[in-house]
């Protein structure tokens, strides 16, 4: 761990208990996230990919500590240590009132720009809300800051008086970005920020986010299921499967030399606009993702893994640094 680390996620697990029966006894546990490790440095963009339901979004929500609001019974294990200056704050352990004063340091951009902006508030009200909470700016300063932010994200300050329904999806997402940037956070968790947008708009928004990342010196945790987007934007890539982390390393390494069989299959599915590679071999996985209610023993991926061995069922594979900065949770590929 270097001095530059912004957040260090150690052995993070998020379990949702399931109650049922006459006496509402606990009958099962959804292991949405089951012991993952990674870290994000300052000014770094970490991409997180995986299929639907693999726990990417849950990781993001755990990292801004709002899971307890959504699901009061949730069990969060491990630690999410933020390094704000000299302060080390563990978001996994703080209660929601204790975490409030650090809220301005970690912000979030949501997937659906139609749902993430309150339809009853004007853009000015939406963006100035974090300012009211975390700064002592007066109304005039807030208006100025809102105008400045709107300018930064490519909207006109005059549009501040409008309501979200008067904007297109891309414009709304820009408003969401402006809101996330309002308090100069250290980390922005981007929960599939472009997957609800039109392809032509996706590129604009991603490039805008890249520009703003340099300007605001902010880190991103970029959650997506589109690998080509993630490769374009990220410094590091984390691949998740069924609540576990399959692979984590530098973007180039993971994208071009994936080690984990799941990453390989995922990457072979990325469409490439390159006719010369038309005959590229696609790895098609068999079957569906198992339910997180009843995960396979040992390696979670073994039921669909093309190279699975009987030994895979015995114990959970170690998440091991197989090459420099390249962590893989599969002992079978260690020797390549």
């Amino acid at each position, binding site marked *: 761990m270097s001095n530059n680390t912004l957040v260090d996620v150690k052995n993070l697990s998020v379990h949702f208990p399931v109650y049922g029966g006459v006496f509402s006894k606990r009958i099962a546990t959804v292991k949405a996230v089951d012991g993952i490790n990674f870290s994000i440095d300052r000014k770094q963009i970490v991409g997180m990919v995986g299929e639907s339901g693999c726990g990417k979004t849950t990781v993001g929500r755990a990292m801004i500590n709002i899971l307890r609001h959504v699901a009061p019974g949730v069990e969060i294990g491990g630690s999410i240590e933020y390094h704000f200056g000299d302060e080390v704050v563990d978001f996994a352990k703080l209660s929601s009132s204790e975490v409030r004063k650090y809220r301005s340091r970690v912000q979030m951009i949501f997937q659906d720009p139609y749902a993430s902006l309150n339809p009853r508030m004007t853009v000015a009200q939406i963006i100035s809300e974090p300012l009211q909470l975390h700064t002592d700016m007066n109304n005039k300063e807030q208006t100025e800051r809102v105008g400045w932010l709107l300018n930064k994200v490519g909207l006109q300050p*005059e549009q501040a008086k409008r309501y979200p*329904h008067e904007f297109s999806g891309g414009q709304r997402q820009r408003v969401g970005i402006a809101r996330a940037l309002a308090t100069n956070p250290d980390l922005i968790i981007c929960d599939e920020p472009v997957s609800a947008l039109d392809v032509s708009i996706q590129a604009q928004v991603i490039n805008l986010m890249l520009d703003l990342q340099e300007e605001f010196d902010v880190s991103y945790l970029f959650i997506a299921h589109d690998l080509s987007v993630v490769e374009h934007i990220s410094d590091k890539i984390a691949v998740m499967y069924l609540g576990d982390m399959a692979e984590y390393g530098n973007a180039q390494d993971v994208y071009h030399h994936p080690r984990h069989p799941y990453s390989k299959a995922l990457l072979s599915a990325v469409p490439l606009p390159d006719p010369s590679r038309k005959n590229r071999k696609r790895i098609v996985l068999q079957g569906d993702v198992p339910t997180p209610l009843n995960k396979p023993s040992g390696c979670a991926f073994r039921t669909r893994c093309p190279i699975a061995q009987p030994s895979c069922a015995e114990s959970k594979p170690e998440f091991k640094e197989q090459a420099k900065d390249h962590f893989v949770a599969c002992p079978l590929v260690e020797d390549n």
Partner: protein
Amino acid sequence: MESKNMSEQQEISLSILKKRWLKFKTLRRGYYSFIIILTLYILSWFLPILINNRALVVSYEGDLYFPVFSGYHAGSVFHQDVPGEAVYRELKAEWKQADSENWLIMPPYPYSPYEDITVQGNKMFEEPSSTHWLGTDNTGRDVFSRLCYAFNISISFALILSTLNYFIGILIGGSMGYFGGKFDLIFQRLIEIWSSLPMLFVIIIISSIIRPTFFLLIFIYTIVNWIGMTYLMRAEFYREKSKDYVAAALSMGQTNFKVMFKHILPNSLVPVITYFPFSVVGGITALVSLDYLGFGMPPPTPSWGQMLDVGLSNIPKWWMVFAPVSAQFVTLIMVVFIGEAVREAFDPKVYSRLR
């Protein structure tokens, strides 16, 4: 320059509520009903100077009196030979006949809802005429003036009742939906127990023990009626809290209270507002039925229910049934028109049947 102003005007953004208000205005039936009810209700607060048996101004031997505001003046003050309070209508006639220097100004409709047969000149069961527009009842009280005063009481009762119900219902239902879990579970069970109380009997029992007043009736109705709203609000808050804008507000550190009332509530007002007129209808009917059964407002408070009761026991005197029934009918149907138009205005579909 002019065109620039035009485009600027068009660019002014409308909040959703404002848009709905504009749409409401285009629904003529509901909008006019709203205007009429609102005007009548505002007017009804000035009833003491519009419909009253006390004079507005009396000039007697050089002194000015304002009985509407100052209240009781015995007949002897004006040298009138009546027991108790002066009868200003008679005074006016007397002074006019005697061509006296004294004068007085009566309200436009000089009969109060409380004066009865004991007051000089009043008769029982008078048929509608130009003096008594809707006749008089079994104790010689003017039906029209009672009708008007009862309108004020009915609407006020329904409005206060609905508002209180909404306030409590939103607070409790909203918290249940927002916090969920054990809080929700416990309150849901409490509400189920509470709602199984036979409310009409409770009110009848309480009314027969204590003499009910306006606010006591509201209180009794509220402790049973807030339940209906909690179901709606619980569902609304439950649905809204899972939306991303709530997560966004929480992730920037907004308190639960602010999230509930600044973010979620404005987005869950649709059932509240569309249901409100119908809740008012319910309030009016509730008071009428209680008064009709004799467990409502204490006599001689003017009320439609009591008038209906008297009317039905004297059915050949048609005006005493006709007046309260038609007043009620017109009021309720106008409130329902308002309710329909509100619901229509909140309907996102552009084309509608009601227009």
